[in-house]
């Protein structure tokens, strides 16, 4: 490893390293961030959830969106896999169905960036025991 020669050098190295620690930093404060859950049960993975998840991780980092992308189990919407749940800070979570990478791109651009709703929303018709 090369020597750190100046404060500017140190700052540059820090920036480079930061993305590696991002995931840990963000887990410290999930409430203030966009939280995306990708349903990654067998059916989801078979329909391409893994690619969608990779895409989301990449794209949010590249476009500077502070987001936590996690995997979760089956959401139960097997007819609409891959499904993802997006929770913007301070808002109710919304579930999108049939998300391929193209759809994911649209969700990031329209819903996450501007709050515009896009097609493919699955109405949530259950309550969790938390609320």
């Amino acid at each position, binding site marked *: 490893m090369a020597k*750190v020669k*100046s404060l500017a*050098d140190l700052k540059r190295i*820090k920036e480079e*390293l930061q993305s590696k620690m991002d995931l840990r930093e963000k887990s410290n404060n999930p409430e203030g961030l966009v939280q995306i859950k990708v349903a990654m049960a067998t059916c989801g993975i078979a329909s391409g959830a893994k690619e969608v998840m990779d895409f989301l*991780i990449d794209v949010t980092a590249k476009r500077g969106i502070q987001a936590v992308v996690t995997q*979760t*189990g089956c959401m139960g919407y097997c007819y609409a896999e891959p499904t993802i749940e997006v929770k913007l800070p301070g808002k109710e979570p919304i579930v999108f169905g049939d998300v391929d990478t193209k759809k994911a791109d649209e969700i990031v651009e329209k819903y996450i960036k501007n709050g515009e709703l896009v097609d493919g929303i699955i109405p949530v018709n259950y309550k969790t025991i938390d609320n």
Partner: protein
Amino acid sequence: MEKYKMHILICGGTGCRASASETIQNNLQEALKAKGLEDEVQVVMTGCFGFCEKGPIVKILPDNTFYVEVKPEDAEEIIDEHIVKGRKVMRLLYVDPEKKEVVSDSKHMEFYKKQIRIALRNCGFINPENIDEYISRDGYAALGKCLTDMTPQLVIDEIKASGLRGRGGGGFPTGLKWEFASKNKADQKYVVCNADEGDPGAFMDRSILEGDPHSVLEAMAICAYTMGATKGVIYIRAEYPLAIQRLKVAIKQAREYGLLGNDILGAGFSFDVEMRYGAGAFVCGEETALIHSMEGLRGEPTVKPPFPAESGYNGKPTNVNNVETFANVPVIINKGAAWFKKIGTEKSAGTKVFALAGKINNVGLIEVPMGTTLREVIYEIGGGIKDGKKFKAVQTGGPSGGCLTEKHLDTPIDFDNLIAVGSMMGSGGMIVMDEDDCMVSMAKFYLDFTVEESCGKCTPCRVGNKRLYELLNKITEGKGTKEDLDLLRNLSTVIKDTSLCGLGQTSPNPVLSTIENFYDEYIAHVEDHKCPAGQCKALMQYVIDPELCVGCTLCARNCPVDCIIGERKEAHVIDAAKCIKCGTCMDKCKFNAISIK
């Protein structure tokens, strides 16, 4: 550099390593490999999480799942269930002992709720053997800021303004100490880190060095810059092998990056650190004794002045600070003195790390703002007394501190308040005692330690403590008199007033505070020859209740000294003269017929 989707953090503190956390790490990695996930999930060994009671701890990110008491054989299930299927392993989650509810996110645990982590900021978060992870958390940024944007005096002013006080126990203002050392001119000066953590029950310094060694190195370099020193020495006890090993790795990495060595960050400032190993003597925590030990002399204190700031290591100006004090410094520089000053109380700014031990549910390492009350620490963070017993006392400040009782529970903890109620901050050990603990035995236990650790240089400490111990021993054997209590008090005061160093000046504290707060218990020992807590063997008597005894002979057959007599199916009797009070008969009796009188 790879980007992982999930991180598995596993505690690599000494406690958790002793419970096989290294095997867990290996098993996790193997299970990941078997599933072909080794490039997607990163397994990181970190420093101490602080929740030692329930170790080994495994934390999964980004969902913040906190698994406790994990065993090596659980690794596969964690990978299969949590990582692959996204289902939490319920049986490994923490259960709140009060509410009996499962808590999966550490943020919602009472243990972590009241804590603010400054000195422990990276413990349980970064891999201590990877300098990159430290740098990504603003590591060495404070040193960079000092070297390029601040004059030494400005740095000293900032530390002074922050109100940071020595965390090793003395509570001396750190900025002031640095200023003294900076004002003395010399061709060579030294920065020393005191890592000779000697209090039984305290382990915060070890945990910081094991979990975040770079923070100490960075702060030592900052201190060196303010006083014009080029050499740093870490005095650490050889009993801390893991801390030593992690420091070695850290020093090597910092040198490779040029963050230690010549012309650091191109600012023309040079500084390097070496280590000295101590043999683990309590008195070597005292700075003059520590310096003598470093020089290869006997670890004995000398009279101050001259202070180390004038004439210390090798007769040169030396600044000695404790590990935890140093760990606070980079944060103060980065976030500013005003930010730090806002945390804590007026005269004691910031936070303090405490090692919770004894009869408490959540044994572990915590960091709370100064001014938190003992009640909050013991009941909310500590989770209350074990087995639902009654709180009796808490010993703060280790063997030189005092015992505080129920009536002190609402005292906000800071340097001055603890001294005002007859104890001290010390290095932050906190030992909780319940109704089964005898206070006379407790004082005797600590005196036993100080007698052993006294260096023997001055008479009050060498002879006085020994006499205190003998008096306490006499009382626990039921041979004490009321006059002995006055003698204890007088002798304690003399030792405190006339001893040379901090060891003797504080060693009678456990005696004085227990006499003050538990006078009745002493009286019970000397007048009624009874030990109310039932701990002093010589004062106990086992008796068999003839009503309850059915004459099964089980006790008589198990008694190691054959002191129980009686016919079959008739009540038995214990011969008190022969009884050695081992308690076997009471354990064996199935009819609860044997009790202690």
